[in-house]
């Protein structure tokens, strides 16, 4: 019986890929383990092996086709003597993912407000051009630019050099900077974090990549007790100019130990700076600022955002200051405050609210410590309503802190209690349906927004 060969998922977050090359032709006899094709994910090009034996009856997707959805048929495998079925399975080629900045642009135009870039990036030179870049490329470019500028900056972590990054952030960097400055470590977070902190005391500016921030738990003592506190304990004599970066929060279906948002944890600590960008432009500009900053900076990335594209100012040296929120779009009826991947749900909700005729102001905090409370307060004084959105746990969350600031400094302006939308108060489950329930959702944001709007 003819069997469909389906587009495989080659990583936890892969939804589609490019069929780069067929290594078999129609009529070829194949057996289990033969390489059928090369498939490009957003991270890497991988070989795709046959599971069953048979004859390639038909190649359904041409070489070089991009955006082939996972699980759509790409070829038909026949048994000996069998004919190609007349009705071929239909291949779904999804539209390319709509870049969130595009959503934002639509949202802004729906609200008839000026483009968001002009709100914060007033310092951009006139006529600045933009280029479309993924968050991954933006992070890589930020590191590379700073390493070209300053010999003291180097990258260290697991698989950053020869493997080119577990998430391909550091692709090509070993070639450019060599093994002295792009350094593979053994799997030993506690140890290499301590070594990097010591090197920072010694005058270098390490960028430490954690394969994910879940693994940084092993290194927590060095981050908090050594990196964050030494400047104070030494009476200002010495501190650690160091960046700790890597993916943070849930990816997709990787379960409880690999899915946690540490934003609130690190934001608790005096001596640390904490940033969690959403867009590629902010990822780039904030990372460059973080590397130049003389303090330890926690730079929280997100695996799901790595492959998403945004417009990034095409400037030789684009930086974004730490500690400044970005007003993503202006509005008068409600303030939605978020950061990182939380912005995805926030912007989806904002669009739905705009369709209901609600004028929404979205504040992307970007930096969590120092936190730009003034921008939030100013916004709430105008809108009188606020919902915060984040992926982390509800107890002692960033939203809790924002709420307390608003209660103390904008109490008389609030027309409704501030609602914190967060991830649910449970370890991340593996089952697909439960994982979805555990994360903060657009529906959660909509329900909260309607509640504070009394609608």
């Amino acid at each position, binding site marked *: 019986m003819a069997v469909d060969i389906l587009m495989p998922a080659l990583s936890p977050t892969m939804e589609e890929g490019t069929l780069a090359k067929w290594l078999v032709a129609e009529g070829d006899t194949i057996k289990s383990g033969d390489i059928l094709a090369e498939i490009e994910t957003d991270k890497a090009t991988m070989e795709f092996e046959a599971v069953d034996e048979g004859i390639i009856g038909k190649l359904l997707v041409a070489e070089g086709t991009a955006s082939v959805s996972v699980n759509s048929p790409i070829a038909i495998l026949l048994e000996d003597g069998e004919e190609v079925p007349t009705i071929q399975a239909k291949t779904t080629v999804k539209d390319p993912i709509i870049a969130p900045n595009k959503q934002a642009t639509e949202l802004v135009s729906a609200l008839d407000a000026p483009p968001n870039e002009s709100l914060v990036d007033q310092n951009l030179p006139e006529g600045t051009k933009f280029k479309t870049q993924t968050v991954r490329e933006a992070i890589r470019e930020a590191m590379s630019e700073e390493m070209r500028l300053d010999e003291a900056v*180097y990258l260290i972590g697991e698989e950053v050099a020869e493997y080119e990054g577990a998430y391909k952030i550091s692709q090509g960097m070993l070639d450019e900077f060599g093994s*002295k400055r792009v350094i593979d*470590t*053994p799997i*030993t977070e*506690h*140890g*290499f*974090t*301590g*070594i*990097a*902190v*010591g*090197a*920072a*005391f*010694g*005058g*270098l500016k390490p960028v430490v990549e954690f394969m994910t921030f879940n693994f940084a738990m092993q290194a927590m*003592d*060095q981050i908090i*007790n*050594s990196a964050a506190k*030494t*400047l*104070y*304990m*030494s*009476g*200002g*004599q*010495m*501190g650690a*100019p160091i960046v700790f970066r890597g993916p943070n929060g849930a990816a997709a279906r990787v379960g409880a130990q690999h899915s946690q948002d540490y934003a609130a944890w690190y934001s608790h600590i*005096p*001596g640390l*700076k904490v940033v969690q960008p959403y867009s590629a432009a902010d990822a780039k500009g904030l990372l460059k600022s973080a590397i*130049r*900053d*003389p*303090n330890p900076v926690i730079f929280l990335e997100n695996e799901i955002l790595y492959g998403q594209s945004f417009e990034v100012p095409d400037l030789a040296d684009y930086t974004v200051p730490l500690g400044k929120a970005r007003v993503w779009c202006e509005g008068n009826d409600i303030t939605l405050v978020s950061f990182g991947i939380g912005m995805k749900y926030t912007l989806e909700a904002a669009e739905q609210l705009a369709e209901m005729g609600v004028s929404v102001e979205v504040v992307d905090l970007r930096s969590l410590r120092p936190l730009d409370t003034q921008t939030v307060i100013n916004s709430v004084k105008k809108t009188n309503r606020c919902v915060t959105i984040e992926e982390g746990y509800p107890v002692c969350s960033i939203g809790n802190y924002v709420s307390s600031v608003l209660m103390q400094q904008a109490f008389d302006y609030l027309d409704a209690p501030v609602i914190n939308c967060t991830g649910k108060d449970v370890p991340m489950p593996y089952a697909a349906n439960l994982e979805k329930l555990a994360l903060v959702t657009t529906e959660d944001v909509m329900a909260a927004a309607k509640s504070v709007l009394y609608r």
Partner: protein
Amino acid sequence: MATKKTRKTNLSKDDLMPLYRRMLLIRRFEEKAGQLYGMGLIGGFCHLYIGQEAVVVGLEAVAEEGDKRVTSYRDHGHMLACGMDANGVMAELTGRSGGYSKGKGGSMHMFSKEKHFYGGHGIVGAQVPIGAGLAFSDKYKGNTNVTFTYFGDGAANQGQVYETFNMAALWDLPVIFVIENNQYAMGTSQQRSTSSAEIYERGQAFGIPGEAVDGMDVLAVKAAGQTAVNHCRSGQGPYILEIKTYRYRGHSMSDPAKYRTREEVQKVREEKDAIQHVRDLLLTGKHCTEDDLKLVDKEIKAIVNQSAEFAKESPEPAPDELWTDIYANLEA
């Protein structure tokens, strides 16, 4: 503990006297600190170095300008030995503005950028990767400095020590791991806590050479230190010195020391004391007279008394110091 003392006869007064003075300064300083603690002038935890003076004094004798050092919370001796000012150290112990950290660090957390002293670390074992990181910075910059990374027999059971051994060996870092084995991890003897009798031998698993050294003999420490420094400075990677020593006082000021007998302590003091050893060498070698040594005692006492006065007189930090030094400013 090894008992054999180096009895070299060709040593001069210039070899011996600086070692003697420095060890004596540490001991008198620590005695004074203990006294001030008893008077309530020093608070919190205070870990005295009395008994272990030969370790740091022997090693500092082979350090060169630019070499770095980092240690645990039992750090007063290390600071005095690397040339930090007794006044600044004592004033930090009393939590005054004249202290090395303006009173914000305390006994366990003191630093001197000028003297390349990187702490003063309160978390057992955490200074070990930091020391390797300091060595990493020197290797990266291409200079020939080494880092003395001190830790105790207790810290030697922390996992990060072995993570660090692995990377230090892998990357040939110029770091000397100095295990100050004073035989007790707080109240737990080495026998009860440590599977190996010779801790330095653990380096063999990583290909790191090392040796055990009689830590009550400052000349033996100095000689072993020279071997270690030569090894590291010539780019051959890390080296381990396990220095067998003994602390006379409790783990901290509040330690009743029920885990060992008074006789055990007394026996070491009487038979192996490192300061007495050099004193004997000075006298038997006819390098000086009892009167000369009395004069040295007097000078040291004056330095220590002066530091205590300074530490009492120095004002407490201004209240607004609470809010300084949390973040460094970007240099323009």
